């Protein structure tokens, strides 16, 4: 069981599996402001040369952030108890 007080250099964090498709990259473009067509337009010349649309480099960077955030969030909730793991869908907007 994860415990941040006992974590050590070399400990392995839980895996985060990402399989970004074009829809996800369009969402990332909207969220990040990076609208380089290399990431979503199959006809963009650079994508044609490479043979595919590339995942944003910063999407991978952000995914590593998510991996750590998810892990720390899980650790935090573990310390606070299940009452703080709110997944009932309510929202205050």
């Amino acid at each position, binding site marked *: 069981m994860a415990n941040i007080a006992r974590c050590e250099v070399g400990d392995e964090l839980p895996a985060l599996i*990402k399989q*970004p498709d074009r829809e*996800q990259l369009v*969402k*990332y*473009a*909207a*969220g*990040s*402001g*990076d*609208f*380089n067509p290399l990431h979503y337009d199959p006809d963009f*010349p*650079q994508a044609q*040369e490479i043979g595919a649309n*590339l995942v*944003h*480099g*910063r*999407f991978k*960077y*952000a*995914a*590593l*952030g*998510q991996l*750590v*955030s*998810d892990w720390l*969030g899980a650790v*935090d909730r573990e310390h*606070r108890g299940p009452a*703080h793991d*709110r*997944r009932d869908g*309510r*929202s*205050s*907007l």
Partner: protein
Amino acid sequence: MDFVITNEMQAELGVESAAWPYEVTTTGIRAFARGVGYQDPVYYDRDAAATAGCEQLPAPPGYLGTPVYLPGYADPVFSVPRGSGPRPRYGFTRVLDGGTEAIYERPLHAGETLSVTDRLLDLKVRQSRSLGTMLIVSREATYRDQAGETVARERSHYVFYES
């Protein structure tokens, strides 16, 4: 392609840009979190953020606010103020992300407006078997809060090449 870094290019190193406002907003945080694929409600739901000890939505790692977009002043592709982002190109037409590093001095939350300056850190020319001549551009952006305190620094590297 032969490419040489000239003294004129070297003279651009370290020159600080004018400051530009970046807004850390609830909408920006949610859009970024959705773009990355976060499921953690702390980045979407104010109650979940409050339960986690945050009065406002926290900015997820990698999100340092949204640059204020002004047509004619911001880059229409990368949404950053002209003078920052992947540049200078020096005639290269192709660009790839070469990596990002950030140092946070404190967490960021919705409701903050940051003042961001940017400078060119380094220029390198490298040869690649697949891409040929590459120009590697490194930049550093400094994010300051309303009190003028540095809250984060971000180094970005860009790889330019020709088709």
